[in-house]
């Protein structure tokens, strides 16, 4: 029996070549999209799970309340937190480990002639391998990070510096001053980690660089701290101890604002959006968006299958009736049709495996992942493919199976099947649904792109174009003026300023005591520590008071500039009235000397809050000069940069020169939106293709079914145009209807997506109209191809058959 079904299925497949091709192609594209998205989501959900103790590892994070100030939600902690937790709660905590990088953009590393700035080096405690599982290919986890001046490198780094030589025992020069011995090499590291590094340096090295008193502060909080809880310990048990912990260790003034809490390691990648993350995390909501798209494309492909099968049912009704007369029971026929659709769907699964394998390199490039179709390493793929094959086969087969098997033998013998209007209506409904989904995806893509271009072009309140950022090093502070003067020699260098973080992307918060506040208390405001030329370099505007100036040599300890929002935040009536107000810091009795026009000091996801610009105390400058911003003239910028590099190499020969453009760096803030836009765009295009395949086949069946009618109409004098219109009209109506369904739904979805941005475009009618026109045009082309073929056919031929 089964053999018989397979035979019929195969012969049907070969007979209806166009039909089979469209069915299998559509399904295969749908399944491929689904699989790519599955692999993507699986990868996202796997983050940090390769550590065998992942379920017991938590990141200790810190919240500085912002009832009054701006506070922060810090992913990192003060230095002593890790050890204090371990000492205080030995019954709850098995081990802790810290990562630290001075919050600098890069460290320099040198071996012989190989000299590079490395962006992903961290200091890490020797307890690393008691908590995490980062695998070593050479080296002993017990000792690799135990001694000061040790470094463990990744394979790529070892290759980069030592080529094929054995890296173990080699000595590299770190930051031009410290010699580090290579004590280990990592094996290939899983990419699914929220901590990505090129090398780890033993934490004890820090004290050799800075002196033994370093790292005792409970204020500065640069250490990413992870705790491995004892087996069976509930994290809330530890969290309930945190108020007492804060009370015991933190300085009095900060206690009321400080809270600690724990983040499960495995939640960080998708859920954590704190300040100072090691690298930007992804959005959980993107996962849902992708999952929805994957399922929708699969639905579109299934709909094709169902539609084509029912459209062809007229041709198969005879077979069904005949089988019934010969004694087939209905459930035997149902089984036959399910068998056929399962057969088709598994062919599609096979084809999709090829498609996925071909598409993966491109998709990996787009999504910046290293996904693979490795069944051995990832047996779940196999299970999902089988499951998808079964579900798709079942979904796609259920309607034909029930519908076709319901034909009565008698109607076949009477020579005519009356197609109930129901199947036609259902078919139209499904086509409408397909197009609605496709249109929604097109509109969604356009709105995402509109928003991205808006984000790129919105006026940030400072100039981001033609600004070169040169990461600096502490020892440069003493030579900064020389460097600046050398650079300014060139007419194309317009201005130069320093800052402690990249304006528009990052900043820290610092303690202030504003006028009207109780003396001795401090609250935290976000601020940038900059040189006196900062405001001019970035074309910012002082709207009251004055700018920092060399003419006021004590500006470093006596002056701050605040933004407009700070004025209103502190209830100071006007910018003019704010001038001269107190804004003390622990190191100086500072006063407001000027008010700067609001600028976006964080990404456009967030509104502008209160903000300060402050200058570093002259004796602390090495610590605060982390970036030098150079604004250059647009023309001949390559030569200008060559000039900047030359002068750097003469003034600061011990550090390699590096630079990047500010606008490019700021665009990275929207990287995840950018990726989302690209991926949604590609999937939308595929969805449209699959939907059109279905429409094409359906149109060809309609044309076929109406061959006789068309023949008669032509004999009666209908024109080709008239017939094309007749055949196309019906489908175009469906496309219009699908617009009516897609518009409100996607409007609602995109409106809530846009609401995630403090700065958002309005949704323009344009995207909707464009998508509708596109949909109509594509549908018309698809349908009219068939319609024209039917219309120009010789009527004598088609009529002879009946």
């Amino acid at each position, binding site marked *: 029996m089964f053999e*018989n079904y397979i035979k019929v299925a195969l012969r049907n497949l070969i007979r209806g070549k166009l039909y089979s091709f469209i069915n299998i192609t559509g399904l295969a594209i749908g399944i491929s999209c689904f699989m790519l998205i599955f692999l993507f989501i699986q990868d996202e959900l796997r983050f940090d799970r390769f550590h065998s103790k992942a379920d017991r590892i938590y990141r200790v994070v810190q919240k500085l309340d912002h009832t009054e100030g701006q506070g922060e939600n810090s992913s990192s902690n003060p230095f002593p937190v890790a050890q204090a937790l371990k000492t205080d709660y030995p019954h709850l905590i098995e081990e802790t480990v810290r990562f630290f990088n001075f919050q600098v953009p890069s460290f320099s590393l040198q071996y012989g002639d190989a000299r590079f700035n490395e962006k992903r080096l961290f200091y890490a405690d020797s307890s690393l391998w008691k908590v995490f599982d980062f695998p070593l290919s050479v080296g002993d986890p017990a000792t690799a990070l135990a001694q000061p001046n040790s470094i463990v490198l990744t394979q790529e780094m070892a290759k980069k510096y030592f080529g094929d030589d054995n890296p173990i025992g080699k000595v590299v020069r770190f930051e031009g001053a410290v010699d580090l011995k290579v004590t280990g090499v990592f094996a290939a590291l899983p990419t699914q980690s929220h901590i990505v590094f090129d090398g780890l340096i033993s934490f004890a090295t820090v004290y050799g660089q800075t002196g033994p008193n370093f790292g005792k502060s409970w204020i500065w909080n640069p250490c990413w701290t992870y705790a491995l809880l004892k087996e069976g310990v509930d994290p809330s048990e530890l969290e309930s101890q945190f108020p007492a912990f804060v009370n015991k260790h933190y300085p009095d003034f900060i206690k009321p604002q400080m809270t600690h809490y724990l983040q499960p390691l495995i939640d960080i990648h998708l859920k954590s959006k704190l300040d100072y993350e090691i690298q930007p995390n992804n959005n959980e909501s993107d996962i849902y968006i992708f999952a929805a798209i994957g399922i929708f494309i699969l639905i579109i492909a299934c709909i094709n299958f169902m539609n084509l099968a029912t459209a062809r049912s007229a041709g198969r009704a005879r077979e069904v009736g005949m*089988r019934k*007369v010969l*004694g087939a*029971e209905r459930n035997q026929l149902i089984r036959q049709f399910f068998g056929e659709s399962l057969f088709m769907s598994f062919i599609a699964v096979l084809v999709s495996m090829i498609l996925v394998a071909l598409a993966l390199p491109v998709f990996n490039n787009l999504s910046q992942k290293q996904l693979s179709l490795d069944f051995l390493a990832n047996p779940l793929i196999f299970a999902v493919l089988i499951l998808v094959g079964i579900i798709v086969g079942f979904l796609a087969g259920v309607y034909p199976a029930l519908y076709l098997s319901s034909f*009565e*033998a008698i109607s076949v*013998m*009477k020579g005519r099947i009356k197609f109930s209007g129901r199947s036609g209506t259902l078919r139209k409904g499904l086509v409408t649904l397909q197009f609605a989904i496709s249109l929604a995806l097109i509109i969604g893509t356009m709105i995402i792109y509109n928003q991205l271009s808006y984000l790129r072009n919105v006026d940030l309140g400072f100039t981001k174009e033609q600004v070169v950022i040169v990461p600096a090093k502490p020892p440069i502070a003493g030579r900064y003026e020389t460097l600046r003067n050398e650079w300014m020699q060139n007419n194309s260098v317009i201005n130069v300023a320093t800052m402690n973080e990249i304006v528009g992307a990052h900043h820290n918060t610092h303690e202030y005591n504003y006028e009207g506040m109780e003396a001795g208390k401090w609250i935290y405001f976000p601020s940038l520590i900059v040189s006196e030329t900062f405001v001019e370099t970035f074309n910012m505007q002082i709207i009251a008071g004055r700018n920092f100036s060399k003419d006021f040599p004590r500006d470093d300890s006596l002056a701050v500039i605040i933004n407009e929002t700070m004025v209103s935040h502190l209830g100071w009536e006007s910018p003019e009235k704010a001038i001269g107000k107190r804004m003390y810091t622990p190191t100086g009795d500072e006063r407001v000397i000027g008010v700067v026009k609001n600028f976006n000091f964080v990404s456009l996801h967030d509104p502008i809050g209160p903000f300060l610009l402050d200058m570093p105390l002259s004796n602390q400058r090495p610590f605060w000069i982390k970036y030098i911003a150079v604004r250059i003239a647009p023309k001949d910028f390559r030569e200008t940069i060559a000039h900047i590099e030359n002068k750097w190499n003469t003034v600061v020969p011990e550090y390699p020169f590096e630079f990047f453009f500010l606008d490019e760096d700021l665009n990275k803030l929207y990287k995840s939106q950018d990726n989302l836009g690209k991926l949604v765009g590609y999937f939308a295009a595929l969805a449209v293709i699959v939907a059109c395949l279905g429409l094409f086949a359906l149109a060809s069946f309609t044309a076929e079914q109406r061959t006789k009618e068309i023949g008669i109409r032509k004999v009666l004098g209908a024109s080709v145009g008239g017939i094309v219109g007749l055949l196309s009209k019906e489908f175009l109506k469906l496309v219009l209807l699908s617009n009516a369904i897609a518009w409100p739904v996607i409007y609602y979805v995109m409106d809530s997506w846009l609401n995630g941005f403090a700065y958002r475009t309005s949704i323009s009618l344009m995207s909707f109209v464009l998508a509708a026109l596109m949909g109509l045009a594509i549908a018309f082309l698809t349908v009219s191809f068939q319609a024209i073929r039917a219309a120009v056919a010789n009527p004598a031929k088609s009529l002879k058959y009946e």
Partner: protein
Amino acid sequence: MIKLNGIEKYYSSGFVKTYVLRGISCEIKEGEFVSIMGPSGSGKSTLLHILGMLDEPTNGEYYFLDQAVHKISEKQKTEIHKQYIGFVFQSYHLIDELTVYENIETPLLYKKINSSERKGMVADILDRFNIVGKKDLFPNQLSGGQQQLVGIARAVITNPKIILADEPTGNLNSAQGEEIMDMFKKLNKDGTTIIQVTHSEKNAAYGSRIINLLDGWIKEEGKN
């Protein structure tokens, strides 16, 4: 074998009833060869469908081998149908996707007869009908007469007690028609009851009895 008592069949559209069959009462004995004749639209096919349990009368009683068909369930009808009745159609109704061999084999599949037995039965029938050479061809590779032979072969392979044939020679030329009628005659001799619908006096002459239908009434019954 078959007993009809006051069979009526009408279609109602709105308030208008269109009678197709009225007051049909008759008996057909085992081993008979009956021809149903009458003008187009007189209800011949409808009667045959009712006899074959593919259609239901609106009123009246139908006994098949002393079973009250008008009272039994759909499932039982399918069983009786499968076991006792073979159908032959004017337009053959072979399954286009299957070969001659597979077409003939299909009813056996639905009777769940095992593979080796099936092979034997199909081989036997192919032989009896002289179409062994055609067994791997598809229906569209055969002439009309050959297709109808396959249709009959398919109908008799399950050894039905009765064969119902609706204008079996309607699409055939006279030589082909004769061949088919000879086949029926032979089957009838071997004990199979045959009821055929036909327009041709010549074909009717192969049978033992004629039922004439006119506007749904039995006009007259004649014996040959």
